[in-house]
C-alpha cells in the first residue's frame, strides 16, 4: 500500500486529469442526504467490485450524539430491555463526553441483516465516509464471513429477538413488579460471562423461533424441573437408581443455562429472563473473541477504500488529511510507560497485522519467506479473506503475528509471580523471543485464559440441595474478591446453599466460597 505522502506527489497530475467518469464528490465538510447516498454508492462499488467484499445489505441510520450515547449505554444493542445499569452506563458516557475526555465512538454497527450502521449527525462528510467504509462494509463483511459469527449469531433474527426480549421484560415488570425483575436481571448480569456455550452450539437453538415457542417453553421447562425434584419415590428400587444419578451428569460451564434448566424454586418467567440474558451474552460472545481481528479488518478496509477513493479522485486533499488525522488517532498505540497506556489497542494491533499480511503477500522479505512461506507471494485479497473467515483473535495472532511487527511494537512479556519480589522479563522482540512473545500474546486473547474456569460440579439432590461449583485454578490465580458478591446472586437464583470449591493445580480441593456463610449455621446448631 502506498503511503499517503507518496500519493500527494502524484496528485497534481491526477487533479488535471481525473479518471474518466469520476469526479470529486464534494468539497464542503457538511454532509447532506444526497451526498451520503453518493458516497455510499461509490464505497459500495469499491468494496464489492474492486475488493470483492461479501456483505449484508446496508442500512445507514443518522442519529444525534445523544442517541449515540443511548446506543453506547446499552452495549450497542439497538433495542435493549430496561435496566438501571444501562442508565448508569449512560450517565458515565454522558459525563465523559461532556467533559471532553472521550470522543464518542464514531460509529456503532449492529450484526444484523440488513447490517445497521449508525452515523452521527455531528460528523463531517469525510467522517461519514470513513464510518461507512469502516462499519457498513468492513465490520459488515466480517460479521457475514467470520466462522464464529456464522456459528453463534443469527443476523437475520437478532433485531426481532431483542424486541421480543424488551417486551417480555416489560411484561414481566408489569406482572410481577419492577423490583422482582430487577433482582433477577442483576443476578443474571453478574453471571453473564458464565452464560455462554463455548464449544458447541446446542441443536435447534436459533433466535428465530425464540419468541414463538416461548410460552410453550415456560410450561415444559417447569415440568422438567418438577420432574427433577420430585421427592416422592414410592418404589424403593427406583430410589436407588436415583441416588446414583448425578446432577449435572457432567460438569457444566454454562452456569446460567444450568440454572435456567435446574434451579428448583424459580418461576417460569424467571427462567425465561435468565434465557434472555443468556441469549444476549451468547450473541456478543463472538465479538469478545474477535476484537483485534474485527477492528483490524474494519480499519484495514476503511484505510484501503478511502485511499482508493482518493486515487480515483473522488475525494480531495483536505478530506484525505482529515481522514489521515482521525485514522492515525484511532490506530495509535501508547507505549507501556505512557500515562495514556491501557493495554494493547486492538485497532492498532489489528490494523497493523492486516497491513502486514498484505505486505507479506506482495513484498515479502527474507525473514517473511522463512516465517510465512505459505502466504508469501500469494494473492493478498484471498489470503486476508481466508484469515478473516477462519480465525479468532487468539489463533489469528498465533498464526500471523510477524517478527517484523513484534519489532515495530517493541513487544515484551512480563511475568508477574506473586512468590517473587520482582517481575521477570520473560521474552522480548529478539530472535529467541519472537515465538515466545507471539505465543504469550495469543494466549492473552484466549478468553478461557482470561476468565476463571468455573463450572457447575454437583448438586446434592438427595440432601439439602447444595449447589457446588468448581474453580479449576490456573497459575495459582485466586478468584477475585467480587466473588463474594457474585455468589450471593448465585444463591438468589439457586435458592439453596451454594459453594465454590477451588481445585488447585496439584489436585488439592478446598471450599473457598460459601453462601450463606456457614458461621450463622454453626450458631443455629449450638
Amino acid at each position, binding site marked *: 500500500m502506498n503511503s499517503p505522502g507518496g500519493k500527494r506527489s502524484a496528485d497534481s497530475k491526477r487533479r488535471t486529469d481525473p479518471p474518466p467518469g469520476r469526479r470529486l464528490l464534494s468539497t464542503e465538510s457538511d454532509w447532506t*442526504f444526497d451526498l451520503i*447516498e453518493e458516497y*455510499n454508492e461509490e464505497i*459500495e462499488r469499491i468494496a464489492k467490485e474492486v475488493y470483492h467484499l461479501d456483505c449484508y445489505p*446496508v*442500512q*445507514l*441510520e*443518522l*442519529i444525534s450524539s445523544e*442517541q449515540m450515547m443511548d446506543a453506547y*449505554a*446499552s452495549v450497542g444493542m439497538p433495542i435493549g430491555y430496561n*435496566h*438501571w445499569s444501562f*442508565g448508569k452506563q*449512560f*450517565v*458515565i458516557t454522558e459525563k465523559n463526553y461532556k467533559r471532553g475526555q472521550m470522543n464518542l465512538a464514531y460509529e456503532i454497527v449492529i450484526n444484523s441483516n440488513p447490517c445497521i450502521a449508525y452515523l452521527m449527525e455531528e460528523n463531517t462528510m469525510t467522517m461519514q465516509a470513513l464510518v461507512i467504509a469502516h462499519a457498513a462494509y468492513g465490520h459488515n463483511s466480517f460479521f457475514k464471513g467470520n466462522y464464529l459469527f456464522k456459528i453463534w449469531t443469527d443476523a437475520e433474527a437478532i433485531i426481532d429477538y431483542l424486541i421480543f426480549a424488551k417486551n417480555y421484560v416489560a411484561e414481566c415488570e408489569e406482572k410481577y413488579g*419492577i423490583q422482582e425483575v*430487577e433482582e433477577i436481571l442483576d443476578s443474571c*448480569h*453478574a*453471571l453473564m*460471562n*458464565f452464560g455462554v456455550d463455548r464449544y458447541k452450539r446446542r441443536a435447534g437453538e436459533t433466535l428465530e423461533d425464540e419468541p414463538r415457542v416461548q410460552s410453550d417453553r415456560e410450561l415444559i421447562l417447569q415440568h422438567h424441573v418438577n420432574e427433577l425434584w420430585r421427592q416422592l419415590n414410592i418404589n424403593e428400587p427406583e430410589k436407588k437408581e436415583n441416588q446414583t444419578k448425578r446432577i449435572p451428569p457432567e460438569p457444566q460451564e454454562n452456569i446460567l443455562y444450568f440454572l435456567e434448566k435446574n434451579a428448583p424454586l424459580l418461576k417460569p418467567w424467571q427462567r425465561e429472563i435468565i434465557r434472555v440474558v443468556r441469549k444476549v451474552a451468547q450473541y456478543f460472545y463472538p465479538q469478545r473473541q474477535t476484537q483485534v481481528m474485527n477492528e483490524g479488518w474494519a480499519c484495514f478496509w476503511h484505510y484501503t477504500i478511502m485511499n482508493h477513493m482518493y486515487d480515483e479522485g473522488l475525494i480531495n486533499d483536505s478530506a484525505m488529511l482529515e481522514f489521515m488525522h482521525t485514522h492515525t488517532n484511532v490506530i495509535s498505540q501508547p*507505549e*507501556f*510507560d505512557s500515562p495514556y497506556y*491501557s*493495554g*494493547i489497542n486492538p485497532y492498532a494491533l489489528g490494523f497493523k497485522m492486516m497491513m502486514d499480511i498484505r505486505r507479506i503477500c506482495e513484498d515479502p522479505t527474507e525473514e517473511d519467506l522463512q516465517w510465512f512461506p505459505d502466504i508469501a507471494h500469494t494473492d493478498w485479497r484471498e489470503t486476508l479473506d481466508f484469515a478473516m473467515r477462519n480465525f479468532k483473535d487468539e489463533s489469528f495472532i498465533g498464526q500471523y503475528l510477524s517478527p517484523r511487527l513484534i519489532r515495530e*511494537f*517493541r513487544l*515484551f*512479556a*512480563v*511475568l*508477574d509471580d506473586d512468590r517473587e519480589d*520482582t*517481575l521477570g*522479563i520473560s521474552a*522480548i522482540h529478539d530472535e*529467541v523471543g519472537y515465538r515466545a*512473545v507471539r505465543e*504469550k500474546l495469543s494466549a*492473552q486473547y484466549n478468553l478461557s485464559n*482470561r*476468565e*476463571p474456569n*468455573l463450572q457447575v460440579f454437583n448438586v446434592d439432590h438427595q440432601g439439602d440441595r447444595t449447589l457446588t461449583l468448581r474453580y479449576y485454578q490456573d*497459575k495459582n*490465580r*485466586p*478468584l*477475585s474478591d*467480587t*466473588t463474594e458478591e*457474585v455468589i450471593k*446472586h448465585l444463591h438468589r437464583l439457586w435458592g439453596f446453599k451454594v459453594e465454590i470449591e477451588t481445585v488447585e493445580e496439584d489436585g488439592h480441593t478446598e471450599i473457598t466460597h460459601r453462601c450463606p456463610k456457614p458461621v450463622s449455621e454453626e450458631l443455629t446448631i449450638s
Partner: protein
Amino acid sequence: MAMIIDRRLDGRNKSAVNRQRLMRRYKQQIKKSVSDAINKRSITDTQSGEKINIPARDVKEPIIHHGRGGIHEQVHPGNKQFSQGDRVKRPEQSGQGGGGSQASNTGEGEDDFGFEISKEEYLDLLFEELALPNLVKTKVVAQSAKTLVRAGFSNTGVASNLNLLRTMRRAKGRKIAIASPYSKRCRELEQLLQQELERKPHNEEKIKSLREELALLRARIESIPFIDTYDLKFNQFIPQPKPITQAVMFCIMDVSGSMSQATKDIAKRFFILLYLFLSRSYERTDVVFIRHHTSAKEVDEEEFFYSRETGGTIVSSALKLMRDIVRDRYPTEDWNIYAAQASDGDNWEDDSATCRDLMIDSIMPYLQYYAYVEIHNQEHQGLWREYEKVGEMFETFSMKQIRDTGEIYPVFHELFKRQDA
C-alpha cells in the same frame, strides 16, 4: 442499494427509562445527597439542578474474574531497555500491568459515582412525601362553599332556565303524534278528492262533502297547541360542594435587631424552601409575606428576602396584621390558611402573652396549620413558653427549633411531612 434513514427525530430519550430505574434504585443515597446539598446552596439558587454523588461501591456490578496473586503474564508494547531475563521492581498499584484481563480494571476505584440531576428531579426529590397538612379536611368541613353545576334536565324550573331546543323538539313531537290520525285521514280524503275531480262529470255533492270534511280536519290539526306545559324542559343545576384547594400561606419573619445575619440567613433559607414547595406543589397558593420588628408590614417577595430594615421586636404586631389580612381578604370558607413564623424567640417581654391570646382567640381557630420555628441555640424565652400553651390547645400548631443550617431541611421535612389520614 443501501437504505438511508434519518433517525434523529425519533426516540431522543431512549435512556430516560433506564435513568429513572437508576434513580429509583439509589433513591436513598440520592435523597441523602439532595438534603445535604440544600444546606450548601446559596439562598437565591433555586433554578439549577444538583450534582449527586453515590459511593462507587454501591453502584458497581460485580462479576467473577481472576483476583490478584498467582502468576500473571502480560505482553506490553514499547520496550526500551529490557532484555530477556531482566528483573524489575514491581510497580506501585496504579501502574500494575500484571492485572491480567480487562476485568480487573473494574470496580477498584473508590471514587464516587457522580451525576447531575435536573432542577425538576431535584425539587421532586426534595419535596417528596411533603404536603400541606389538613388540606383535604377543610374541603369536607366547609360545606357552605358551593357551586352550581349542570345536572341534566328537569320538567320544572324557572323560565330563565328553559331549554329552548329540547322544549321545541318535544313540542314538535307531540304535535306530530296528536295530529297523526287526522293527518292520515287528510291524506285519504285528498286522494279521494283528486279522484273525484278527475272523474267526468264531476259529482259536485261528493266533492263538496269531501272538501268540508277536509277543512274540518285541517282546523283540528291547527288547533293542536303550539306549545304545552307538557313540553317544557328546563336545564337543571344542582349545588355541589366547591372543592377548596386554594390556600394562602403567611410567612412571618422577624427582622429585628436581635436577629443576627446568620439567623436571618437560616430564616430566609427556610422560607425559600417553603416558597419553592408551595409554588411547586399547589397551583393556587397565595403567599403573604409579613416582616416585622416593632411594627409589621406586608411586603412583596423581593423585599421579604432582600430588604435590610431592622429594629426592636414586637411579635404581636405581625400577628395582628395577619389577623386583619385574613379577615379582609381570605374568608375562611374559601381558603385554607397556613402560616409559618420564624423568629429567634426574642420578644418584648409583655408582648408574648398578648401573642398567645391573639393566637388562641383570633388566629388558630381559622387556620389549617401553624408552624413556628425558633432559630437560636440558647435557652428558650417567653415566646416559646407562651406558644407551648397554644400548642397544647391546638393540634394544628407545631413548633420546632433550628440550631444551624444543617437542621433546616430536616425540620422543614418534619413540619410538612405528609400525614396519612
